[in-house]
């Protein structure tokens, strides 16, 4: 990428926005975040808003997204609306600690008194005040703003976010449910920065639901940095269900130490342009990472799952399965890269992307990559794009199942395959149900989500 491409109109507009709001942003954010802002701007200007000529954004045109005037609300005040009354999670039997985040800000009325000892959940601002050493252990340690322009943007604009810490050998049985809400009466860009730290031998499950409360267009730039220490285990389930004007740029950057175990799930239901950057660095022996994704898209939706797995140490295992069901004029993208570094012997890495195209105008672009610099590995990947097997369909029909129903059964089976790995049962059942309703066309963007806002 050369500098002349980087300084496009979209880049200049975001630079101007930053310079205009800088004072307010800094006033309402902790010093720790402020220190890195100007450096983030510099690296953003070098990279620019990526056009389709930038390899990593070849299939997702962010210039289109940012080639308009976006606004940023730099103070917390507008997030202080009373959402609790209009908002309730309706997943049956799902017993979680619920944490609300509004427009990138920690919701002050979150009640977390029931959290067991050794588990800390608070706003990032508060964490900087009270647990600075813990935050410092993770924040910007394994994430490089110069590597990705969306990350640089987060560095420029993010003022708050969530901090989660699980102390040594503490096992959090009840999942944490983080609900990211977008709300407001005007279009805006919201940035959020989260830090998650799991100490040795700890365990946690986190369900993240992205949701919009109003019908405005939002850019949600959500960056999460995670450190999973020795023998720790973390599950992250992300259900993305926002209105179709919304652009969701989500980054999940996980550093794993030895014998750690990570499971991630990305469930995409609604949203305009969705880009999920997932980076996992297996930086300790015997670490294990499983990544799953299911995207169901229609209309003009654009879903891009971008994963990078570094096998930095020997004896690690990674497994990725991403599935897409594309209909309408939707466009799906999967880019996965398995990077086995030298001396990462006995690596086992697997990557799979299967996509169904249901309409003539749907599109799928997939790029599963292997970069392997060690010989003692077992790595494989597979990618398929196609449609429902007519023979299997015939089999079902010959047993008296109507064509439409048979088709749905097969699509559902295709999608369910990924969900069967989800380790929170009520959530899995709920997503199963949502998927089915979604596939049957019985949903509206409003009721097909894990959280019903009743608005």
């Amino acid at each position, binding site marked *: 990428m050369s500098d002349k491409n980087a300084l496009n109109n979209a880049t200049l507009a975001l630079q101007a926005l930053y310079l205009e709001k800088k004072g307010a942003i800094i006033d309402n954010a902790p010093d720790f975040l402020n220190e890195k802002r100007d450096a983030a701007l510099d690296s953003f200007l070098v990279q620019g808003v990526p056009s389709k000529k930038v390899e990593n954004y070849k299939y997702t045109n962010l210039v289109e997204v940012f080639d308009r005037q976006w606004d940023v609300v730099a103070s917390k005040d507008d997030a202080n609306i009373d959402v609790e009354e209009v908002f309730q999670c309706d997943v049956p039997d799902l017993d979680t600690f619920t944490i609300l985040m509004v427009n990138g800000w920690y919701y002050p009325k979150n009640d977390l008194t029931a959290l067991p000892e050794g588990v800390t959940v608070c706003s990032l601002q508060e964490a900087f005040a009270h647990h600075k050493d813990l935050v410092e252990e993770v924040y910007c340690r394994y994430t490089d703003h110069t590597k990705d322009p969306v990350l640089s943007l987060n560095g420029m604009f993010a003022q708050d976010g969530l901090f989660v810490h699980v102390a040594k050998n503490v096992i959090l049985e009840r999942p944490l449910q983080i609900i990211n809400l977008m709300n407001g009466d005007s279009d805006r860009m919201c940035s959020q920065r989260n830090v998650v730290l799991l100490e040795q031998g700890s365990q946690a499950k986190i369900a993240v639901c992205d949701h919009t409360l109003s019908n405005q267009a939002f850019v949600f730039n959500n960056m999460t940095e995670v450190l999973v220490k020795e023998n720790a285990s973390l599950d992250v389930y992300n259900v993305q269900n926002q209105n179709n004007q919304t652009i969701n740029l989500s980054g999940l950057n996980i550093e794993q130490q030895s014998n750690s175990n990570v499971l991630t799930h990305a469930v995409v239901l609604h949203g305009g342009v969705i880009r999920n950057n997932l980076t996992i660095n297996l930086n300790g022996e015997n670490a294990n990472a499983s990544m799953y994704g299911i995207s169901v898209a229609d209309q003009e939706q654009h879903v891009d799952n971008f994963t990078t797995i570094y096998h930095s140490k020997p004896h690690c295992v990674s497994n990725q399965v991403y599935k897409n069901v594309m209909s309408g004029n939707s466009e799906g993208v999967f880019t996965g890269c398995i990077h086995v570094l030298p001396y990462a012997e006995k690596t086992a890495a697997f990557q799979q992307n299967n996509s169904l195209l249901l309409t003539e105008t749907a599109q799928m*672009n997939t790029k599963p990559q292997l970069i392997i610099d060690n010989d003692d590995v077992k790595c494989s990947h597979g990618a398929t794009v196609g449609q429902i097997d007519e023979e299997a369909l015939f089999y079902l029909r010959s047993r008296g199942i109507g064509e439409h129903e048979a088709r749905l059964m097969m699509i559902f089976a295709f999608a369910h395959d990924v969900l069967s790995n989800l380790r929170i049962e009520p959530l899995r059942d709920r997503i199963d149900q949502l998927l089915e309703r979604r596939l049957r066309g019985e949903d509206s963007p409003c009721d097909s989500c894990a959280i019903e806002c009743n608005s």
Partner: protein
Amino acid sequence: MGDQDKLLNEVTQREYQYGFVSDIETETISKGLNEDVIRLISSKKKEPKFMLDYRLKAYRYWQKMDMPKWAHLNIPEIDFQDIIYYAAPKSTPKYESLDEVDPELLATFDKLGIPLQEQKQLTGVAVDAVIDSVSVKTTFKETLSEKGIIFCSFSEAVQEHPDLIQKYLGKAVPYTDNYFAALNSAVFSDGSFCYIPKGVRCPMELSTYFRINASNTGQFERTLIVAEDDSYVSYLEGCTAPQRDENQLHAAIVEIIVEKGAEVKYSTVQNWYPGDKNGVGGIYNFVTKRGICKGDRSKLLWNQVETGSAITWKYPSCILIGDDTVAEFNSVALTNNYQQADTGTKMIHIGKNSKSTIVSKGISAGKSSNAYRGLVKVGKNASNSRNFSQCDSLLLGNQCGAHTFPYVEVANNTAIVEHEATTSKIGEDQIFYCNQRGISTEDAIGMIVNGYAKEVINKLPMEFAVEAQRLLEISLEGSVG
């Protein structure tokens, strides 16, 4: 590990067998590249005006371009002003029989194990031998001309069939295509031209042996194959180059036009000098190969065995325009020592019911890096198109790399596209199994590698299959324990 090191040493110490310089007088022009050099090349070749215009257009376009950086390759800076762009054996007399050919030249081919005489008498392969860019000898021309087949050097074709050249030049690979295609279009010296008329099945396999000979001359080949309706041709290209310390640049273009119902099979064995065991010297092989399946039911097959060159950058591609067209790409790429390869294919499906198959086998040893890069693109109107890709990598030695960069773009819901890739090394259990049955580790590896590549080698014409198998053995035998 001790055993492995010893065996690795043995292999790395193996000298390049084909490293010798033929003592043939060559005519060269001075180093450097500018418009005058292009005019000089064009006038030396007595080209018509349209050719000069084409070259100049390409050169002006090239000047505006930057060297591409996207490949997974580490390419040292190339000084394009430090290259001689034209080298031709002095005086190129027309020979009627092999006896008149310079005995030195014939000896060169003998050393390569591909004597012209034998080829002519025993195998019936017509050979268009290209030594340093100018075609010296074309055999079997008469037999072919009876059928109306044109098989001659590119410069001859420019003189004798300017209408055909003008019609097809740059149709598959326009000069604007990429950096090296533009460079080639500006300075190409010679190459082969092959035209199969309507309904003709070429009775023999056409073959060109390229060889870079004079020191410091980049070789800029250009091959154009046109297969008219319902015709068939199998074309062989093989390359060996003498040992040199300075890197030599080779930027070739191959264009293939396949009309309705025609079939073209293009096979390559590339064995250029890969540089010594320290990565010094070797050929830079930057090739643009592309075929267009223009008519309905046309068929194009690319088969390649790549064992040579310090850097290989090559993506033989197919554009499937016609309905019911078929394309295949079968490749074995082997890298050793410090060799680098970034190779693969593009299959662009435009016509309905088009089918393509990709089989790529990469073998990396030593400190080499071997990448597969491919694109399968299904356009909106390519209903019922089908692709299957398989890319396997075999790693021998813990310092080499094997990479896979497949791109799949599908915009039609009736298309079925599948891609799969695996990376592995030779299993210790496999070797143990062979050892147990009295087969030495070296032989076992040879067997396993040959078995691994067999799927592709089997697709090669007989003569090539033998050479290819031998090349794999030479390059790999015993490289891991």
